[in-house]
């Protein structure tokens, strides 16, 4: 019962967040400054998730060459930059991770 209440609560806050400006905008106009800021949301939020995934893999900063996630991630970033291909980026990144895990 408590479990389902928690899940329901999680769902309600998530939905409220997603609905917020879609409903609010019927009454308010978004200022230019806010729209300018919104352009930087995806790179900022996604990088804030990516960096710790690559550089903080086991609860601590790891800049060594033994950090396979960092190496595979850098290779994937290179592929993304050159090809702009999502599928290829994921495939190369996972392949590199598995090979490096086997070698190192």
């Amino acid at each position: 019962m408590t479990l389902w209440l928690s899940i329901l609560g999680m769902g309600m806050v998530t939905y409220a967040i997603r609905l917020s400006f879609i409903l609010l905008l019927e009454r308010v106009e978004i200022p230019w400054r806010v729209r300018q800021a919104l352009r930087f949301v995806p790179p900022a939020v996604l990088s804030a998730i990516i960096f710790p995934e690559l550089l903080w893999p086991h609860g601590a900063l790891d800049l060594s060459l033994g950090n396979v996630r960092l190496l595979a991630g850098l290779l994937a970033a290179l592929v993304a930059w050159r090809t702009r291909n999502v599928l290829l980026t994921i495939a190369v990144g996972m392949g590199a991770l598995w090979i490096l895990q086997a070698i190192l």
Partner: protein
Amino acid sequence: MVTGRSEFLAGVRAELPILLGVIPFGMIYGVLALSAGLPSGAALGMSSIVFAGSAQFVGTQLIGAGTPGIVVVLTTFVVNLRHMLYSASVAPHVRHLRPVWKWLLAYLLTDEAYAVTIIHYNRESDPAHKHWYFLGAGLALWGTWQASTAVGIFLGARVPASWALDFTLALTFIAIVIPALRDRASVAAALSAGVVALLAAGLPYKLGLMLAALTGIVAGVALETLYPSAARVPIAAQGESRNR
């Protein structure tokens, strides 16, 4: 000719490459939710009631550790706060739609659906049916998420941790963010957010994520204000397409 149907299918097609990263991520969620002690029904129910990957991962861990419900809900709020910015970003584009569309598209407003939809909205083309593109991308992701979490729950502990399937999350985000770094201000936003995320990685309840995101946004705006560049073009184009 652009119709609702063709836009819907184009949205599904644009979402397909991203789904490759979502499938293992959904399966991992299913596996981890069971190992955290959630019954399969609750793990599955969370995928349709919450429908937010990273929040579901954090939520199942907290629930499994016996965290009070109110803390679970507050943490979900913090982890998903970035969706408020997505909401503000798509709001001008869905403004003309009937309420039933707004409520439906808001439910489907995830990282992955937003990423492909906003690119399409900012493109110079007939805006009349673009909400069908949003619906196509959103429903493709929704169906895939439900199916892959169900498979993960079914497989349970049979997927070895050494496969490191959780890494597909980072790879998917890399594939989305790198092509979007078209000017100095975006690069500054990404780099400063990444560095602050590392510095603040020890903060509780994923607060480091919010702090890092805000830093990145401020850095991007500051740099663009100091050095106005061609970066303003997409914003102007966005305004034009809305006024047509």
